[in-house]
Protein backbone atom coordinates (compact mmCIF):
# COMPACT_ATOMS: atom_id res chain seq x y z
CA UNK A 1 0.00 0.00 0.00
CA UNK A 2 1.33 3.41 -0.87
CA UNK A 3 1.53 6.38 1.47
CA UNK A 4 -0.84 8.52 -0.58
CA UNK A 5 -3.83 6.36 0.17
CA UNK A 6 -2.97 6.32 3.82
CA UNK A 7 -2.71 10.11 3.95
CA UNK A 8 -6.02 10.47 2.19
CA UNK A 9 -7.53 8.05 4.64
CA UNK A 10 -6.11 9.95 7.61
CA UNK A 11 -7.26 13.30 6.30
CA UNK A 12 -10.70 11.94 5.64
CA UNK A 13 -11.05 10.34 9.02
CA UNK A 14 -9.88 13.51 10.76
CA UNK A 15 -12.52 15.57 8.93
CA UNK A 16 -15.16 12.96 9.68
CA UNK A 17 -14.19 12.83 13.30
CA UNK A 18 -14.41 16.60 13.64
CA UNK A 19 -17.88 16.55 12.10
CA UNK A 20 -19.00 13.77 14.41
CA UNK A 21 -17.67 15.59 17.44
CA UNK A 22 -19.65 18.72 16.62
CA UNK A 23 -22.90 16.92 15.91
CA UNK A 24 -23.35 14.91 19.11
CA UNK A 25 -22.27 17.75 21.36
CA UNK A 26 -25.10 19.84 19.94
CA UNK A 27 -27.59 17.04 20.63
CA UNK A 28 -26.23 16.60 24.11
CA UNK A 29 -26.85 20.26 24.91
CA UNK A 30 -30.41 20.02 23.66
CA UNK A 31 -31.05 16.94 25.77
CA UNK A 32 -30.02 18.68 28.97
CA UNK A 33 -32.46 21.56 28.59
CA UNK A 34 -35.50 19.57 27.42
CA UNK A 35 -38.41 19.90 29.82
CA UNK A 36 -41.02 17.84 28.01
CA UNK A 37 -43.22 18.73 25.08
CA UNK A 38 -45.17 21.93 25.81
CA UNK A 39 -48.55 20.32 25.16
CA UNK A 40 -47.61 16.88 26.42
CA UNK A 41 -50.37 15.11 28.29
CA UNK A 42 -49.94 13.65 31.73
CA UNK A 43 -51.80 12.06 34.59
CA UNK A 44 -51.99 13.29 38.16
CA UNK A 45 -52.30 10.35 40.55
CA UNK A 46 -53.79 11.17 43.96
CA UNK A 47 -52.87 8.30 46.27
CA UNK A 48 -55.27 9.53 48.97
CA UNK A 49 -58.19 8.46 46.76
CA UNK A 50 -57.20 4.92 45.79
CA UNK A 51 -59.18 2.14 47.49
CA UNK A 52 -57.42 -0.74 45.76
CA UNK A 53 -60.38 -2.03 43.71
CA UNK A 54 -58.12 -3.09 40.80
CA UNK A 55 -60.61 -1.84 38.20
CA UNK A 56 -57.72 -0.11 36.40
CA UNK A 57 -55.96 -3.47 36.03
CA UNK A 58 -59.08 -4.97 34.46
CA UNK A 59 -59.46 -1.96 32.16
CA UNK A 60 -55.85 -2.26 31.00
CA UNK A 61 -56.25 -5.96 30.35
CA UNK A 62 -59.29 -5.38 28.13
CA UNK A 63 -57.95 -2.33 26.31
CA UNK A 64 -54.54 -3.80 25.54
CA UNK A 65 -55.97 -7.27 24.78
CA UNK A 66 -53.66 -8.84 27.33
CA UNK A 67 -53.76 -12.54 28.18
CA UNK A 68 -55.99 -13.97 30.87
CA UNK A 69 -54.79 -13.07 34.37
CA UNK A 70 -53.78 -15.71 36.91
CA UNK A 71 -56.45 -14.53 39.32
CA UNK A 72 -59.69 -12.57 38.80
CA UNK A 73 -59.36 -8.80 39.01
CA UNK A 74 -61.62 -8.71 42.06
CA UNK A 75 -59.36 -11.12 43.94
CA UNK A 76 -57.61 -9.04 46.58
CA UNK A 77 -55.25 -11.79 47.72
CA UNK A 78 -52.80 -10.43 45.12
CA UNK A 79 -51.91 -7.70 47.61
CA UNK A 80 -50.31 -10.35 49.83
CA UNK A 81 -48.24 -11.83 47.01
CA UNK A 82 -44.48 -11.54 47.11
CA UNK A 83 -42.32 -12.45 44.14
CA UNK A 84 -38.67 -12.94 45.05
CA UNK A 85 -39.41 -10.95 48.19
CA UNK A 86 -40.85 -8.03 46.23
CA UNK A 87 -44.39 -6.75 45.78
CA UNK A 88 -45.94 -7.14 42.34
CA UNK A 89 -44.51 -5.18 39.41
CA UNK A 90 -45.74 -4.70 35.84
CA UNK A 91 -45.06 -7.60 33.48
CA UNK A 92 -45.52 -8.47 29.82
CA UNK A 93 -49.01 -9.72 30.73
CA UNK A 94 -50.06 -6.85 33.01
CA UNK A 95 -48.91 -3.33 32.15
CA UNK A 96 -50.23 -1.98 35.43
CA UNK A 97 -50.57 -3.43 38.93
CA UNK A 98 -51.95 -2.06 42.19
CA UNK A 99 -50.04 -2.74 45.40
CA UNK A 100 -50.97 -2.22 49.03
CA UNK A 101 -48.74 -0.47 51.56
CA UNK A 102 -49.11 0.12 55.26
CA UNK A 103 -47.68 3.53 56.14
CA UNK A 104 -46.57 4.01 59.73
CA UNK A 105 -49.31 5.24 62.03
CA UNK A 106 -52.03 5.21 59.36
CA UNK A 107 -55.45 3.66 60.02
CA UNK A 108 -56.13 2.79 56.43
CA UNK A 109 -53.72 1.01 54.08
CA UNK A 110 -52.44 2.95 51.11
CA UNK A 111 -52.85 1.62 47.59
CA UNK A 112 -50.67 2.58 44.69
CA UNK A 113 -51.04 1.85 41.00
CA UNK A 114 -47.79 1.16 39.19
CA UNK A 115 -47.27 1.64 35.47
CA UNK A 116 -44.88 3.42 33.12
CA UNK A 117 -44.43 7.01 34.28
CA UNK A 118 -43.73 8.28 30.76
CA UNK A 119 -40.63 10.32 31.62
CA UNK A 120 -39.87 13.57 29.84
CA UNK A 121 -36.43 12.19 29.09
CA UNK A 122 -36.80 8.43 29.27
CA UNK A 123 -33.79 6.37 30.28
CA UNK A 124 -35.21 3.39 28.35
CA UNK A 125 -35.16 5.46 25.18
CA UNK A 126 -31.58 6.54 25.81
CA UNK A 127 -30.44 3.00 26.50
CA UNK A 128 -32.02 1.47 23.39
CA UNK A 129 -29.42 0.96 20.66
CA UNK A 130 -31.93 0.04 17.96
CA UNK A 131 -33.98 3.20 18.60
CA UNK A 132 -37.15 1.23 19.34
CA UNK A 133 -38.43 3.86 21.78
CA UNK A 134 -40.11 7.18 20.99
CA UNK A 135 -41.35 9.95 23.25
CA UNK A 136 -44.34 11.30 21.34
CA UNK A 137 -45.38 14.98 21.46
CA UNK A 138 -48.59 13.78 23.16
CA UNK A 139 -46.45 12.60 26.06
CA UNK A 140 -46.40 8.81 25.64
CA UNK A 141 -43.25 6.71 25.68
CA UNK A 142 -43.97 4.10 23.04
CA UNK A 143 -41.81 1.47 21.40
CA UNK A 144 -41.62 -0.43 18.15
CA UNK A 145 -41.70 -4.12 18.98
CA UNK A 146 -40.71 -4.92 15.37
CA UNK A 147 -37.21 -3.55 15.82
CA UNK A 148 -36.77 -4.65 19.44
CA UNK A 149 -34.00 -7.23 19.59
CA UNK A 150 -34.78 -8.20 23.17
CA UNK A 151 -31.51 -7.00 24.69
CA UNK A 152 -33.24 -5.81 27.89
CA UNK A 153 -31.03 -2.73 28.26
CA UNK A 154 -34.17 -0.67 28.90
CA UNK A 155 -35.20 -2.94 31.76
CA UNK A 156 -31.94 -2.14 33.49
CA UNK A 157 -32.00 1.55 32.54
CA UNK A 158 -35.54 2.24 33.77
CA UNK A 159 -35.38 3.85 37.22
CA UNK A 160 -38.90 2.54 38.00
CA UNK A 161 -38.38 -1.11 36.89
CA UNK A 162 -41.28 -0.92 34.45
CA UNK A 163 -40.55 -2.72 31.16
CA UNK A 164 -41.67 -6.35 31.14
CA UNK A 165 -40.20 -9.07 28.97
CA UNK A 166 -41.79 -11.96 27.10
CA UNK A 167 -39.57 -14.57 28.73
CA UNK A 168 -41.86 -17.33 27.49
CA UNK A 169 -41.30 -16.43 23.83
CA UNK A 170 -38.50 -18.63 22.50
CA UNK A 171 -38.06 -17.21 19.02
CA UNK A 172 -38.76 -13.52 19.37
CA UNK A 173 -38.73 -12.27 22.95
CA UNK A 174 -39.56 -8.56 23.15
CA UNK A 175 -40.19 -5.81 25.67
CA UNK A 176 -43.77 -5.03 26.70
CA UNK A 177 -44.96 -2.08 28.73
CA UNK A 178 -47.66 0.55 29.25
CA UNK A 179 -47.87 2.86 26.23
CA UNK A 180 -50.38 5.37 27.69
CA UNK A 181 -52.98 3.68 25.39
CA UNK A 182 -51.27 5.64 22.63
CA UNK A 183 -52.55 3.70 19.63
CA UNK A 184 -56.15 3.38 20.68
CA UNK A 185 -56.79 6.49 22.77
CA UNK A 186 -54.12 9.11 23.45
CA UNK A 187 -53.51 9.73 19.73
CA UNK A 188 -57.16 10.79 19.49
CA UNK A 189 -56.92 12.95 22.59
CA UNK A 190 -58.69 10.44 24.83
CA UNK A 191 -57.54 9.46 28.32
CA UNK A 192 -56.09 5.99 28.82
CA UNK A 193 -58.46 3.15 29.75
CA UNK A 194 -57.33 2.91 33.38
CA UNK A 195 -58.02 6.61 33.98
CA UNK A 196 -61.51 6.38 32.55
CA UNK A 197 -62.34 3.22 34.50
CA UNK A 198 -61.38 4.49 37.95
CA UNK A 199 -64.41 4.91 40.24
CA UNK A 200 -62.55 7.27 42.55
CA UNK A 201 -60.87 9.41 39.90
CA UNK A 202 -57.55 8.65 41.50
CA UNK A 203 -56.09 9.68 38.17
CA UNK A 204 -56.76 13.00 36.49
CA UNK A 205 -55.82 13.26 32.82
CA UNK A 206 -54.83 16.51 31.15
CA UNK A 207 -51.96 18.64 29.96
CA UNK A 208 -49.01 18.04 32.24
CA UNK A 209 -48.54 21.71 32.98
CA UNK A 210 -52.22 22.19 33.90
CA UNK A 211 -52.21 19.12 36.14
CA UNK A 212 -49.15 20.40 37.96
CA UNK A 213 -51.22 23.45 39.01
CA UNK A 214 -54.07 21.22 40.19
CA UNK A 215 -51.63 19.11 42.19
CA UNK A 216 -50.21 22.21 43.88
CA UNK A 217 -53.75 23.48 44.51
CA UNK A 218 -54.82 20.27 46.22
CA UNK A 219 -51.82 20.37 48.50
CA UNK A 220 -52.44 24.03 49.30
CA UNK A 221 -56.21 23.80 49.82
CA UNK A 222 -56.08 20.73 52.08
CA UNK A 223 -53.50 21.60 54.69
CA UNK A 224 -52.34 18.57 56.64
CA UNK A 225 -53.79 16.07 54.19
CA UNK A 226 -50.89 15.80 51.76
CA UNK A 227 -47.14 15.47 52.00
CA UNK A 228 -45.76 18.66 50.48
CA UNK A 229 -44.15 17.01 47.49
CA UNK A 230 -45.18 16.12 43.96
CA UNK A 231 -43.35 12.92 43.08
CA UNK A 232 -42.44 13.13 39.40
CA UNK A 233 -42.37 16.90 39.08
CA UNK A 234 -38.59 16.91 39.17
CA UNK A 235 -37.59 13.25 39.59
CA UNK A 236 -35.38 12.01 36.73
CA UNK A 237 -36.07 15.24 34.85
CA UNK A 238 -39.86 15.10 35.30
CA UNK A 239 -42.37 12.36 34.50
CA UNK A 240 -45.65 12.47 32.59
CA UNK A 241 -47.41 10.64 35.43
CA UNK A 242 -46.85 12.17 38.83
CA UNK A 243 -48.12 11.59 42.34
CA UNK A 244 -49.40 13.30 45.47
CA UNK A 245 -49.77 11.37 48.71
CA UNK A 246 -50.82 11.60 52.34
CA UNK A 247 -47.97 9.31 53.44
CA UNK A 248 -44.25 9.87 52.94
CA UNK A 249 -43.42 8.57 49.46
CA UNK A 250 -40.81 6.08 50.66
CA UNK A 251 -43.55 4.36 52.69
CA UNK A 252 -45.57 3.88 49.51
CA UNK A 253 -42.72 2.07 47.81
CA UNK A 254 -41.32 5.05 45.89
CA UNK A 255 -37.60 5.38 45.35
CA UNK A 256 -36.89 8.78 46.87
CA UNK A 257 -33.17 8.65 46.09
CA UNK A 258 -33.61 9.18 42.36
CA UNK A 259 -31.74 12.15 40.92
CA UNK A 260 -33.65 15.26 39.94
CA UNK A 261 -31.86 15.29 36.60
CA UNK A 262 -32.58 12.95 33.69
CA UNK A 263 -30.71 9.65 33.80
CA UNK A 264 -29.01 10.55 30.52
CA UNK A 265 -27.19 13.37 32.34
CA UNK A 266 -25.09 10.72 34.08
CA UNK A 267 -23.54 9.62 30.81
CA UNK A 268 -24.07 12.60 28.51
CA UNK A 269 -20.63 14.14 29.01
CA UNK A 270 -18.93 10.82 28.63
CA UNK A 271 -20.90 9.87 25.51
CA UNK A 272 -20.05 13.18 23.86
CA UNK A 273 -16.35 12.32 24.21
CA UNK A 274 -16.63 8.84 22.71
CA UNK A 275 -16.76 9.92 19.04
CA UNK A 276 -13.80 12.21 19.65
CA UNK A 277 -11.70 9.52 21.28
CA UNK A 278 -12.57 6.90 18.72
CA UNK A 279 -12.06 9.01 15.58
CA UNK A 280 -10.00 12.09 16.25
CA UNK A 281 -7.43 10.60 18.57
CA UNK A 282 -6.20 7.94 16.13
CA UNK A 283 -5.95 10.51 13.36
CA UNK A 284 -4.32 13.11 15.58
CA UNK A 285 -1.74 10.85 17.15
CA UNK A 286 -0.91 9.15 13.87
CA UNK A 287 -0.34 12.64 12.48
CA UNK A 288 1.97 13.47 15.39
CA UNK A 289 3.76 10.23 14.84
CA UNK A 290 4.24 10.94 11.14
CA UNK A 291 5.47 14.47 11.86
CA UNK A 292 7.83 13.23 14.54
CA UNK A 293 9.28 10.57 12.27
CA UNK A 294 9.45 12.78 9.12
CA UNK A 295 12.91 12.98 7.61
CA UNK A 296 14.02 9.77 9.20
CA UNK A 297 14.66 6.68 7.12
CA UNK A 298 11.03 5.63 7.32
CA UNK A 299 9.72 9.01 6.14
CA UNK A 300 12.34 9.32 3.36
CA UNK A 301 11.24 6.05 1.86
CA UNK A 302 7.67 7.28 1.90
CA UNK A 303 8.47 10.44 -0.08
CA UNK A 304 10.34 8.48 -2.66
CA UNK A 305 7.54 6.04 -3.28
CA UNK A 306 5.07 8.93 -3.48
CA UNK A 307 7.14 10.57 -6.24
CA UNK A 308 7.24 7.34 -8.11
CA UNK A 309 3.48 7.08 -8.10
CA UNK A 310 3.09 10.67 -9.34
CA UNK A 311 4.89 9.69 -12.61
Amino acid at each position, binding site marked *: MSKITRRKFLAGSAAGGAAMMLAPSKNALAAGSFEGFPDGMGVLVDLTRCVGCRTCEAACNTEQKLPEPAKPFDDYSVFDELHHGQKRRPTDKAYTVVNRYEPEGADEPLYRKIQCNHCNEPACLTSCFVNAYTKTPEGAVIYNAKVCVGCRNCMIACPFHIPGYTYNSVLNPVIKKCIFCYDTRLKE*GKPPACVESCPQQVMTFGKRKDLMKIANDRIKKNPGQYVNHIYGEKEVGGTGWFYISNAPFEQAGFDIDLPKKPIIDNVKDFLAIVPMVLTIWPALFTGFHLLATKGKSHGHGDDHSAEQEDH
Partner: protein
Amino acid sequence: MVNVGKRLITGLGVLVLTSLFTVGCFAMDYPDEVEIDSLANLYEAVVFDHAMHVDATDSCADCHHHTTGTPSSSEYCAKCHDGAVEMDVVSCQDCHSGDPVSAENLHNPQPGYFYHNDKPNLKAAYHLNCVGCHQEVDGPTGCEDCHAKTEAGEKYYRSGEFAPEAAAHSSGH
Protein backbone atom coordinates in the same frame (compact mmCIF):
# COMPACT_ATOMS: atom_id res chain seq x y z
CA MET B 1 -117.08 30.93 68.96
CA VAL B 2 -114.10 32.85 70.11
CA ASN B 3 -112.86 29.81 72.01
CA VAL B 4 -113.26 27.59 69.00
CA GLY B 5 -111.35 30.09 66.87
CA LYS B 6 -108.56 30.24 69.46
CA ARG B 7 -108.38 26.48 69.65
CA LEU B 8 -108.24 26.23 65.89
CA ILE B 9 -105.37 28.70 65.71
CA THR B 10 -103.50 26.95 68.54
CA GLY B 11 -104.08 23.59 66.89
CA LEU B 12 -102.79 24.88 63.60
CA GLY B 13 -99.81 26.42 65.31
CA VAL B 14 -98.93 23.15 67.02
CA LEU B 15 -99.32 21.31 63.73
CA VAL B 16 -96.99 23.69 61.92
CA LEU B 17 -94.46 23.54 64.75
CA THR B 18 -94.55 19.74 64.84
CA SER B 19 -94.05 19.46 61.11
CA LEU B 20 -91.18 21.95 61.26
CA PHE B 21 -89.62 19.93 64.03
CA THR B 22 -89.75 16.62 62.21
CA VAL B 23 -88.46 17.96 58.93
CA GLY B 24 -86.03 20.29 60.65
CA CYS B 25 -83.83 22.15 58.22
CA PHE B 26 -84.88 19.82 55.41
CA ALA B 27 -87.95 21.88 54.69
CA MET B 28 -87.76 21.13 50.99
CA ASP B 29 -89.18 18.15 49.17
CA TYR B 30 -86.77 15.32 48.74
CA PRO B 31 -87.11 11.80 47.45
CA ASP B 32 -87.00 8.93 49.94
CA GLU B 33 -85.27 6.72 47.43
CA VAL B 34 -83.05 7.50 44.47
CA GLU B 35 -82.14 4.97 41.82
CA ILE B 36 -78.66 5.78 40.62
CA ASP B 37 -78.57 4.12 37.23
CA SER B 38 -76.94 6.59 34.87
CA LEU B 39 -73.61 4.79 35.05
CA ALA B 40 -74.86 1.21 35.48
CA ASN B 41 -72.88 -1.05 33.21
CA LEU B 42 -70.39 -3.27 34.99
CA TYR B 43 -72.53 -3.00 38.12
CA GLU B 44 -76.28 -2.90 38.65
CA ALA B 45 -77.94 0.40 39.46
CA VAL B 46 -77.81 1.45 43.11
CA VAL B 47 -81.08 2.00 44.92
CA PHE B 48 -80.01 4.71 47.30
CA ASP B 49 -81.95 5.03 50.56
CA HIS B 50 -82.03 8.80 50.64
CA ALA B 51 -84.37 9.04 53.63
CA MET B 52 -82.05 6.92 55.77
CA HIS B 53 -79.06 9.07 54.83
CA VAL B 54 -81.00 12.24 55.62
CA ASP B 55 -81.47 10.86 59.13
CA ALA B 56 -77.90 9.67 59.40
CA THR B 57 -76.21 12.93 58.45
CA ASP B 58 -76.00 16.19 60.34
CA SER B 59 -76.57 18.43 57.39
CA CYS B 60 -77.57 18.29 53.74
CA ALA B 61 -74.28 20.04 53.07
CA ASP B 62 -72.41 16.84 53.93
CA CYS B 63 -73.33 15.57 50.49
CA HIS B 64 -74.94 18.49 48.67
CA HIS B 65 -72.31 21.11 49.53
CA HIS B 66 -74.01 24.54 49.49
CA THR B 67 -76.78 23.81 47.00
CA THR B 68 -79.66 22.94 49.35
CA GLY B 69 -79.61 26.15 51.31
CA THR B 70 -77.55 24.90 54.23
CA PRO B 71 -74.19 26.59 54.71
CA SER B 72 -71.27 24.61 53.35
CA SER B 73 -69.46 22.47 55.90
CA SER B 74 -66.14 23.13 54.20
CA GLU B 75 -64.33 26.15 55.51
CA TYR B 76 -62.85 26.67 52.09
CA CYS B 77 -66.20 26.65 50.23
CA ALA B 78 -67.88 28.69 52.97
CA LYS B 79 -65.78 31.69 52.01
CA CYS B 80 -68.24 32.25 49.17
CA HIS B 81 -71.13 29.94 50.03
CA ASP B 82 -71.78 30.85 53.64
CA GLY B 83 -75.39 31.94 53.19
CA ALA B 84 -78.41 29.72 52.94
CA VAL B 85 -79.28 30.21 49.31
CA GLU B 86 -81.08 27.28 47.81
CA MET B 87 -80.11 26.59 44.23
CA ASP B 88 -82.24 25.48 41.31
CA VAL B 89 -80.25 22.29 40.94
CA VAL B 90 -79.37 20.02 43.83
CA SER B 91 -78.85 16.55 42.38
CA CYS B 92 -75.29 15.26 41.97
CA GLN B 93 -75.40 15.01 38.21
CA ASP B 94 -76.61 18.56 37.75
CA CYS B 95 -73.17 19.87 38.69
CA HIS B 96 -70.96 16.82 38.27
CA SER B 97 -72.26 16.55 34.76
CA GLY B 98 -70.64 14.75 31.91
CA ASP B 99 -67.21 13.38 32.14
CA PRO B 100 -64.41 15.92 32.46
CA VAL B 101 -61.93 13.34 31.21
CA SER B 102 -63.78 12.76 27.95
CA ALA B 103 -61.90 13.95 24.89
CA GLU B 104 -64.66 16.41 24.09
CA ASN B 105 -64.55 18.16 27.44
CA LEU B 106 -60.78 18.14 27.61
CA HIS B 107 -60.43 20.09 24.41
CA ASN B 108 -63.39 22.39 25.02
CA PRO B 109 -63.06 23.17 28.70
CA GLN B 110 -66.17 24.73 30.16
CA PRO B 111 -65.77 28.39 31.00
CA GLY B 112 -64.51 27.68 34.46
CA TYR B 113 -64.68 29.39 37.73
CA PHE B 114 -61.36 29.88 39.39
CA TYR B 115 -62.49 27.70 42.28
CA HIS B 116 -64.44 24.95 40.59
CA ASN B 117 -61.52 23.85 38.44
CA ASP B 118 -60.94 20.46 40.08
CA LYS B 119 -64.47 19.06 40.15
CA PRO B 120 -64.65 15.23 40.14
CA ASN B 121 -66.62 13.53 37.39
CA LEU B 122 -70.00 12.00 38.28
CA LYS B 123 -68.66 8.51 38.98
CA ALA B 124 -65.95 9.88 41.27
CA ALA B 125 -68.35 12.35 42.92
CA TYR B 126 -70.49 9.42 44.04
CA HIS B 127 -67.65 7.16 45.09
CA LEU B 128 -65.44 9.73 46.78
CA ASN B 129 -68.38 11.01 48.79
CA CYS B 130 -69.92 7.63 49.65
CA VAL B 131 -66.78 5.59 50.26
CA GLY B 132 -65.06 8.47 52.04
CA CYS B 133 -67.88 8.79 54.54
CA HIS B 134 -68.44 5.04 54.86
CA GLN B 135 -64.80 4.60 55.83
CA GLU B 136 -65.25 7.12 58.63
CA VAL B 137 -68.53 5.75 59.97
CA ASP B 138 -67.77 2.07 59.28
CA GLY B 139 -70.39 1.80 56.56
CA PRO B 140 -70.11 -0.73 53.75
CA THR B 141 -67.05 -0.10 51.54
CA GLY B 142 -66.80 -3.21 49.37
CA CYS B 143 -67.78 -2.77 45.71
CA GLU B 144 -70.57 -5.33 45.85
CA ASP B 145 -71.85 -4.14 49.21
CA CYS B 146 -73.63 -1.37 47.29
CA HIS B 147 -74.09 -2.73 43.79
CA ALA B 148 -74.02 -6.26 42.38
CA LYS B 149 -71.86 -7.04 39.37
CA THR B 150 -73.63 -7.47 36.05
CA GLU B 151 -72.64 -10.17 33.60
CA ALA B 152 -70.64 -7.57 31.69
CA GLY B 153 -68.91 -6.78 34.97
CA GLU B 154 -68.04 -10.41 35.66
CA LYS B 155 -66.54 -10.68 32.19
CA TYR B 156 -64.60 -7.44 32.71
CA TYR B 157 -63.19 -8.51 36.07
CA ARG B 158 -62.72 -12.14 34.94
CA SER B 159 -64.69 -13.25 37.95
CA GLY B 160 -67.58 -15.61 38.58
CA GLU B 161 -68.14 -17.82 35.55
CA PHE B 162 -65.42 -15.94 33.66
CA ALA B 163 -62.76 -16.64 36.27
CA PRO B 164 -59.44 -17.90 34.91
CA GLU B 165 -59.14 -21.67 35.03
CA ALA B 166 -55.60 -21.65 36.32
CA ALA B 167 -56.43 -19.41 39.25
CA ALA B 168 -53.87 -21.26 41.30
CA HIS B 169 -50.79 -19.15 41.67
CA SER B 170 -49.43 -16.48 39.38
CA SER B 171 -45.85 -16.70 38.18
CA GLY B 172 -43.31 -14.32 39.55
CA HIS B 173 -42.28 -12.62 36.36
